């Protein structure tokens, strides 16, 4: 088992990010898409923390802290919108929401 280097962490987060994007494109359910976005966010966070460790600083962790906070806000609003949308038409399929207003 090779010792994990910064590269391996970065590679991991790259893969994670790719997975997230793939989810955004593949899934036909808004909830899952939001989840995929969270995955992407976490990929980024991982990078921050890893580089933090590499450079021996704490700023990365603080950024992570902020990212998570913003993610919380994003989730709250996003889900609220989602609920509103679902009320309008009984669907969570992004392809169903192709018009700006109805």
């Amino acid at each position, binding site marked *: 088992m090779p010792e*994990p280097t910064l*590269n391996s962490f970065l590679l991991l987060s790259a893969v994670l990010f790719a997975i997230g994007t793939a989810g955004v494109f593949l899934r036909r359910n808004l909830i899952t898409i939001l989840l995929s976005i969270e995955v992407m966010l976490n990929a980024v*966070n991982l990078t921050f923390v890893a580089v933090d460790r590499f450079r021996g600083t704490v700023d990365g962790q603080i950024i992570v802290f902020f990212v998570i906070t913003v993610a919380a806000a994003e989730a709250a609003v996003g*889900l*609220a919108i989602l609920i509103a949308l679902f009320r309008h038409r009984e669907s969570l399929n992004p*392809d169903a929401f*192709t018009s700006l207003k109805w």
Partner: protein
Amino acid sequence: MDAISFWILATILVLASVLVVGQRNPMHSVFLLILSFAALAGLYILLGAPFAAMIQVIVYVGAIMVLFLFVVMLLNAPTEEATSGDRIRRMFGAGPRHFGAVLSAVFAVELALALIRLASMPMPSADRGAPVATVYDIGLRLFHDYGFAFEATSVLILVAMVGAIVLARREAR
């Protein structure tokens, strides 16, 4: 020891994430995501960032994911339905889906190549989990250098709260 746990956690992380986006039941997705978060928290601890790990668990797992669960339950989680509508719309629905997936694969490959080109950057050797900085230091940095950002975030949260309430409120008819 360190290496082993890294590889285990990484595997869990990747598998969980793949499954999150890889299957159709949002409920399962949520829980798989929680799993991946747990793995991530483990990685953070490996990286000597217990604070980040705890925040990750408390906020993500403890709050955000519960919120997701809530919504899934409230909307009774309709699993994916096929895109309806005219041909054009279906085309523009389906086309991007697969092409996008391919794109993200390409993206991953690209990044991988880029990383391979880089010289290997070994982590500074420190005993496992020994925090780079104590919560104390982080607190100092957070409230001194990042004070403004912190306050701004709090305002953001407030706004998000109000927004969420307004949006989700069933408009009185």
